[in-house]
């Protein structure tokens, strides 16, 4: 961007291909605006369905646009955007997440009697933000994208406006979120100061040229703090359970997957710019802390949303294990993990959304008693998602953990691996509690069983198929992740690989 305003560069105006490279973002924004404009014009009652359908169409059109985007890899808009396998992967992921969230929101909006089409517009805008995060290679643009997604999710978190809990959730998310982005921004400023640029490639070049200035380390550390908040890594995780508990259930599904995935994508781009070992121990400690704190705290939770919140902290820890590992292996492991986690977590939240019922009344573990009997199919579906979260074979969660830990072992991070595998063993307990409640206890409360609407079924089917597909045939997705990781790392890998003895840049799993 720094070059964009020098007069000489004005001749290099954006080409048509440049616009195709942000086509998904354009499409999503346009559909978001259509929803926004139509909202006050349409009738309050019937309008909701139409707006929801438009939003879904927008998400699907966004997916289609991603295909066009993928045809023109390269940089756009004066090196601010890069379309490569990496960004295509995350585009597909987050837009698919948005589509599933929209699908699982129809029933929720009706049941909670929320009549505000802006909800769908905000989901689309949030998706624009997270999608942009994954393809931006310019720190200030990343910051703006981060804010687009954050601001949308702040509002979405407070959508159950007359529940005090929801408003509080929104407030906490807002305060801590903007606190964190301020850190990120300060990191950007310092990086700009250290290298004279905010373009990731130029920064990498500048840092390659000589000894890395102290300022750059501080900058990366500050950015890590900011992004650590976003991905809910310990010790920056305290907001997570509160926000997840108060926010609308489908939105929690969104928040815990899409922005997280995008933040990890940014972290990947940022962390590998600078020598990994500069902040190796910071990541190491954050990973160990996240896994342990997340799992241990989840033990005592009685609210399913809180439980899943702590679980998401733990899962952020597993992903960070991959970060601590070598860039090449770590990158593809992170990509696979975020995809698998998105599938299973979204699915779990979709089921939670359905069970919660009006006013989100039924969200404690007790309410899940006897569900195996009263709604066997949904309970079985939730069980598969939970098993995947545990990391049981035949599910995506298993391979996700597997890749992460094998990357860690390859990088000789034996202790971190042991902490990780122990955690994933211990962590099984609290997921199991839900399964136990559903199948091994009899219901003590009168909990209404509502039929599953079509949209929710489609959403669940998508998540289920994705979870099982990643669990049985992980090869293709992983291969794709590895190929795109290879594109990502070499440009920014000076000295990155020096520390790890075992692997080379071309080595695969």
């Amino acid at each position, binding site marked *: 961007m720094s070059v964009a305003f020098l007069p000489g560069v004005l001749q290099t105006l954006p080409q048509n291909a440049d616009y195709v490279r942000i086509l998904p973002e354009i499409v999503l924004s346009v559909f978001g605006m259509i929803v926004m404009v139509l909202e006050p014009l349409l009738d309050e009652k019937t309008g909701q369905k139409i707006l929801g359908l438009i939003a879904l169409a927008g998400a699907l059109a966004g997916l289609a646009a991603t295909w066009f985007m993928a045809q023109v890899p390269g940089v756009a808009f004066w090196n601010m955007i890069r379309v490569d396998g990496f960004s295509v992967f995350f585009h597909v992921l987050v837009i698919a997440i948005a589509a599933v969230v929209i699908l699982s929101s129809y029933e929720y909006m009706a049941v909670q009697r929320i009549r505000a089409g802006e909800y769908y517009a905000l989901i689309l805008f949030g998706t624009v933000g997270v999608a942009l995060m994954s393809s931006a290679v310019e720190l200030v643009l990343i910051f703006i994208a981060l804010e687009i997604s954050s601001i949308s999710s702040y509002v979405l978190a407070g959508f159950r406006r007359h529940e005090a809990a929801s408003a509080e959730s929104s407030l906490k998310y807002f305060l801590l979120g903007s606190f964190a982005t301020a850190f990120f921004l300060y990191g950007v400023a310092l990086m700009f100061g250290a290298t004279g640029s905010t373009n990731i490639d130029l920064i990498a070049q500048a840092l390659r040229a000589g000894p890395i200035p102290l300022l750059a380390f501080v900058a990366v550390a500050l950015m890590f703090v900011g992004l650590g908040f976003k991905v809910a890594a310990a010790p920056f995780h305290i907001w997570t359970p509160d926000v997840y508990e108060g926010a609308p259930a489908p939105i929690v599904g969104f928040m815990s997957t899409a922005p997280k995935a995008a933040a990890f994508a940014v972290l990947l781009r940022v962390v590998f710019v600078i020598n990994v070992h500069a902040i190796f121990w910071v990541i190491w400690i954050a990973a160990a802390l996240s896994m342990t704190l997340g799992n241990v705290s989840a033990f005592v939770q009685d609210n399913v949303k809180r439980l899943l919140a702590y679980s998401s902290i733990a899962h952020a820890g597993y992903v960070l294990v991959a970060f601590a590992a070598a860039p090449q292996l770590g990158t593809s492991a992170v990509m696979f993990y975020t995809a698998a986690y998105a599938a299973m977590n979204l699915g779990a939240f979709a089921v939670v959304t359905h069970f919660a019922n009006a006013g989100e009344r039924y969200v404690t573990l007790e309410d899940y008693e006897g569900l*195996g009997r009263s709604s066997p199919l949904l309970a079985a579906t939730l069980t598969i998602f939970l*098993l995947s979260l545990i990391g*049981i*074979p*035949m599910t995506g969660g*298993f391979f996700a953990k*597997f*890749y992460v*830990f*094998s990357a*860690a*072992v*390859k990088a000789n991070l*034996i202790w971190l*691996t*042991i902490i990780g*595998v*122990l955690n*994933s*063993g*211990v962590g*099984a*307990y609290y997921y*199991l*509690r839900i*399964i*136990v409640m559903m*199948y*091994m*206890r009899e219901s003590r409360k009168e909990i209404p069983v509502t039929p599953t609407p079509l949209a929710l079924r489609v959403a669940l089917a998508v998540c289920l198929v994705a979870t099982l597909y990643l669990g049985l*045939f*992980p*090869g293709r997705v*992983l*291969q794709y992740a*590895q190929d795109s990781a290879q594109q990502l790392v070499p440009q920014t890998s000076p000295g990155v690989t020096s520390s790890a003895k*075992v692997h080379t840049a071309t080595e*695969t*799993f």
Partner: protein
Amino acid sequence: MKTDDLNSIILTLVTFAPLAGGLLLMLLPRRDRDIRIFALVISLLTFVLSLHLPVYFHRSHPGFQYEIDRQWVSTPNIHYHMGVDGISLWLVVLTTFLTPLCVLISWNSIHERVKEFFILLLILETALIGVFTSLDLFLFYFFWEATLIPMALLIGIFGHERKVYAAVKFFMYTMIGSVFMLAAILWLYAHTGSFDFVVIRDQIASGGVPSFPAAAQWLFLGFFLAFAVKVPLFPFHTWLPDAHVEAPTAGSVLLAGVLLKMGTYGLLRFNLGLFPEQARRNASWIMTLALIGIIYGALVAMVQPNMKKLIAYSSVSHLGFVVLGIFSFTQAGLNGAIFVMLAHGISTGGLFMLAGILHERRHTYEISEFGGLASRMPVYAASYLVIVLASAGLPLLNGFIGEFLVLSGAFQDKAVYGILGATGIIWSAVYLLWMYQRVFYGKVTHPVNNSLRDLSGFEKWAVWPCAAAALVMGVAPIMWLGAIDPAVRAALAPFAQVVGKVVGQ
């Protein structure tokens, strides 16, 4: 040739036939009778299919047979590699043999959620067979973990009073044990680039694995911990009594009959196969633990007022024999260990079925609740006697052969191991016969026992095959040992090099 075609896919068929049956079962309407019949047919079909394995097995051939090796995932390099040798061959057959019996024994005892029960049972069978047939470490781990869920659900849904506690305890113990194995597997993969058991074994043997010597002890322990929990070896055994007491009968049968063997099989296949040197080095304390298990299990069994708990602790004791035999590194010891595994599967499976039959009639396992049953249930008492004697190690029944071989192996290794182990046999005779006496002889102390039904048709069909198998195995052990011996000889080959000790003398 037709058999050749079949040979390459037979393991796949045997492994996944139950799973396919389970999936079909999901589509069936909830008519309990149809479901039971269907499950029985599937499990019998699997058994018949699995008989192909011993029939066409080349007995003198020590290596893996019926191998199939396809790439499953390219990155990481995971193969769908299956095969059996003399060690695993009979364990597969044992599994397929016990499953139909489990279906029969559950015919009338499971009334609720019948469909789920049989689906879980069939899925469990697939996972168990998969554990024994996998030759790819990843595949092995996959099936290993896959056994957890159906078993935990069987205990947790269909068990008795403290079922949830038992299920969670079972799950957590095994899960935490096995993650260490996962770490070890990952290490091996990272340093060899393969999950294939044969490849890794050869690579380790030829010294081609970088930084292996430094890590070997830890890797050995990683595998060992997972298996020791499963066996269960003293002091990791505390989940077993709980799981057994709370499990439904069929669950107990498979748990004792097959699941525990996963642990000993793993020790034999992986701890001995991959790390012969470390196995040798750690043998003394492991054998000590095994001996403690034998004697401790027997003593605790003796004072149990609860029949099922008694059988559970007897398992701890018997499995101690297996570990003792394995770590004696002698031909006789290993042969015996494998034979004990099979014999224990049959006889303890039978005991659990018999205990389950009593529980179904009286809803209690307390030994003091019974007495004088011999006159009321003569057929039941006779079947019980055969199986108790088999379990206690009476000559001409299956328990004897294995324990004898194990003890002679242990003797060759160190006399004191043999002597201490031999006391285990005496103890087992004491607690089993004492229990039999209290239950079946004497006066009928509780009037309700006067009207107990003898074995029903289904129950006979479930119990008698066990008794018959116990007898046949006791009379003609060579039918089994003939296939086991070459494999054991091959498994012991590295030890001859490692310590220069002549085996099988």
